[in-house]
């Protein structure tokens, strides 16, 4: 006999094993539906995605080693040049910042005059992007900060260019963020020039956003800058989102569809800024404060200025 050790072919091999197959398929389907609908499976996933962290850490480690080695090997001259350049940029940015602070104060004063409700201060925190590729058909990134570092669900991500996305999943040490260009993502925007409001949807491509259902009469042109409008309270207002690249009528010929290029560098940055709205004077306030509270606070502060204006 050629194979004395091979077990005799089991009769159940072919037909009998469809039952376990069906059982597994059923379990998988139930899990998928549960995860998609945000049911029990989504919660279970939140809990056990801690287990995935060592795998991410390992997968990102070759790049980390490479970066560390490059830092060790970079010469004194190149470091000095980089230092020089950074110092120059810092000076330029600091002067810009001073001007912005002045504008900000003026803005705040004007808002108080109007009795505005947007007296929030921005909370920002830097987080690193872990270099792992998640499922390529959905656009997500993993950050190296989690609930232990104070990251909250729904915080907005920005980089040097503009808005990047928002946090959708938080574990103790990591968090997952959905990018602007994911097909499930939408962000309320405003045309910076005309104030026209619209919603920008992701398209699944890293260089495209889609703004459907703009009225024919809407004031929007190719080259317009889009900024967050702050409506909905999830994204702070005024951050760049993208630039309009093309305009065309939709199928019904009643509306215009605009396509925009995202302002943020979505392909591969290294660090991002997590921002959220916070009430003045409260560091760990809720990300979505009820409007009446700041109004009440400001009413006291702004009691004197409005009077002369009346």
């Amino acid at each position, binding site marked *: 006999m050629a194979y004395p*050790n091979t077990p005799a072919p089991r009769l159940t091999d072919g037909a009998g094993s469809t039952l376990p197959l069906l059982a597994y398929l059923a379990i998988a389907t139930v899990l998928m539906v549960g995860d998609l609908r945000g049911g029990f499976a*989504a919660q279970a996933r939140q809990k*056990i995605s801690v*287990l995935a962290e060592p795998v991410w850490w390992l997968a990102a480690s070759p790049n980390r080693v490479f970066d560390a080695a490059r830092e060790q090997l970079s010469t004194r001259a190149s470091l000095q040049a980089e230092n020089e350049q950074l110092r120059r940029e810092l000076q330029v940015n600091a002067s810009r910042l001073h001007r912005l602070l002045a504008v900000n104060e003026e803005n705040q004063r004007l808002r108080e005059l109007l009795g505005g409700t947007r007296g929030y201060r921005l909370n920002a925190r830097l987080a690193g992007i872990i270099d792992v590729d998640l499922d390529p058909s959905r656009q997500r990134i993993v950050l190296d900060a989690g609930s232990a570092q104070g990251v909250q669900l729904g915080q907005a991500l920005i980089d040097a260019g503009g808005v990047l996305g928002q946090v959708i999943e938080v574990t103790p040490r990591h968090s997952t963020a959905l990018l602007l260009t994911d097909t499930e993502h939408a962000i309320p925007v405003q045309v910076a020039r005309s104030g026209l409001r619209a919603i920008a949807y992701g398209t699944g491509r890293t260089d495209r956003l889609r703004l459907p259902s703009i009225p024919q009469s809407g004031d929007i042109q190719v080259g317009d800058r889009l900024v967050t409008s702050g409506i909905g309270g999830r994204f702070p207002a005024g951050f760049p989102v993208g630039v309009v690249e093309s305009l065309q009528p939709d199928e019904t010929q009643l509306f215009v569809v605009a396509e925009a290029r995202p302002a943020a560098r979505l392909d591969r940055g290294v660090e991002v800024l997590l921002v959220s709205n916070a009430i003045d004077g409260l560091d760990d306030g809720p990300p979505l404060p009820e409007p009446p509270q700041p109004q009440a606070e400001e009413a006291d502060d702004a009691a004197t200025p409005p009077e002369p204006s009346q």
Partner: protein
Amino acid sequence: MNRGPSGWLLYGGLFCGLLAMVAPLPAGFDLARPYLLAMLLCYWLLEAPDRVGLGTAFLAGLAADLVSGTLLGEQALRLVILAFLVQRFRPRLRFFPLWQQALAVFALLLNDRLIDQAIHATAGDGLLPWASWLSPLVGFALWPWLFLLLDGLRLRSRERGT
């Protein structure tokens, strides 16, 4: 004689498959990433059917879902179907010449992509990017090398074991 592979080789290999799933690749290439985990499962289903079955495929799929952030159960479903097909055709697949086996694996991976597409469409995510259809092709090109490598490792570990 101990015919089973060492657990290290089997589970270590599957873990590497998980790592390969999220290891950073240059933008654009990540869509055509070969589904190494499925290929490893395929190999072990052919060579060690007593140790690896639908259950292993299911658990590996769940782990892959957690790691790569797909819907919980999506890859579990895909891998269970793949495992079932391999089990069904195991007697034939095992005695195919290598290139024919690679073709069969290509068909399996292509079928896997189709299921993936179906799940995506059902979940409302639309079409997969076209580059992701290259992944089975890369898998096809990789299979003979993977097979020879794993065969070499398995035989060596067996020699050491006896």
